[in-house]
Structures are given as C-alpha cells and as structure tokens.
C-alpha cells in the first residue's frame, strides 16, 4: 500500500510518500502508526503523540480503529488548518 504524509508529519519523516507492506497482525490504522513509529527516529518523532495524528484511507477521513485491509492509500497528517 502507499503511505502519504503531509505538513509536519511529512517534514519529520522526511518524505512525502512511500510504498510499504506491513506485516501480518497490523490490522488497524492505530496498529500501523505503532508499527511505523518503530521504524526509526524520524518515524518515532512524527508519531510521538499519536492522539493528535489524523488519518485517511483512500482519501476519506478514518479513526484509529479503522481496518487497513484492502486499503490502497493511507495518509497521516496533523489536524487540518484550512479555510
């Protein structure tokens, strides 16, 4: 699946997107955040406070307990500040 990062999540991780295959057992968006945060210092920094991170699956907002099975694109970003 493709992961996309925006705003300070993108800056902390150091790239706008990447392809990943999470191991079996990573079932939800929250699981994925925990798994990602162990991939290195930059990920640990980006996900240090997972409560504030928002997520979208295939371009629709989801909560942390959303299942990632079948997702093509998952995005992580800070709370939005448009308008």
């Amino acid at each position, binding site marked *: 699946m493709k992961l996309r990062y*925006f705003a300070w999540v993108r800056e902390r991780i150091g790239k706008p997107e990447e392809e990943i295959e999470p191991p079996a057992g990573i079932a939800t968006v929250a699981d994925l955040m925990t798994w990602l945060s162990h991939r290195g210092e930059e990920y640990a920094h980006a996900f240090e406070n997972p409560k504030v991170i928002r997520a979208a699956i295939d*371009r*629709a907002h989801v909560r942390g307990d959303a299942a990632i099975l079948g997702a093509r694109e998952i*995005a992580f*970003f800070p*709370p*939005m*500040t*448009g308008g």
Partner: protein
Amino acid sequence: MAATIRLQREPFDAASEAAKLRHGRRDIGAVVTFTGICRSDESGAPLAAMTLEHYPGMAEAEVARHVEAAERRWPLLGVTVIHRYGRLEPGEDIVLVVTAAAHRQDAFAAAEFLMDYLKTRAPFWKQIEFAGGEKTGGKIWVDAKSSDDELAERWTRPGGGREAAE
C-alpha cells in the same frame, strides 16, 4: 444544483464569481460571499507569507462532500467554493465561499457551515513564515484551534446551527 469547486494556486475574483453564480437567474433572492484573507500578523508577530499545503484528490472530495451536505440541509440555488494553495502574502485571498438561495437565512447559514467545515475537515495545512526570517522564529505550522472544532461541532447537535428558513 450544480456547484463550482476549484482548488487553485492562482488568485480569484470574488465579485465576478458571485456575479457568475446569479447570472440570468430570477429565483435567487440572496447571495452571500465570504472571502478569507491572509493577515499580516499571527498573534502579534509580523508575517512575511503563508504557505498552504493540501492533499490533492482528497481535498476536492472533502469539499464536495460538504457542499452536498449543505445542499441537503438548506434549499440552495447555487454554491461556489474556491480554495487556494501555495505561497500567499498578506493581503492575498485564501478562500472564497459563495452561496445563493431564495432567502438570506439559508445563504448565510450555508456559507457559515461550509467555512466551519473547511477549517476543520478539508485537508489543508497552513505554514506561516515570519517577517525577518530565522531571527524571529522562521517558519511554523499553524496549530488547529479547538474553537474551530467547536464551531464545526455545533452543526452536528440536534437543533444546533441554523436550519432552513420557513
């Protein structure tokens, strides 16, 4: 009802967008035009510029979802939403919402509803650049305000917000 939704780097002309929305119509009794503008200060600190990042594809879809929600809630006769992205300097326009209806209450309420949701649900992020560069703090990402969340939340409460005019 056909809505116009555009995300663009270029400036927009609020007056001509409002004129386009009502052109040739005789059923429209009220047009509300809201323009959000880049201010020259953030909490008292002078601003050099603001850069808006967005999530292409999702931003359009999210704006369209909220325009549809507004259409279900109020009897609207036209909606235009234009949101800019990229680097904007103080005094430049950021966002435009135009709503048209037979009665003003519906046009006002729908415009306010759309702005409240654009601020909290549309995937845009503002980064501000302070005047004077690194000495004055360089660039920071704007923090989401809980007051904006509360404004968006009120539309979901029973009897919250303002309902369609009689």
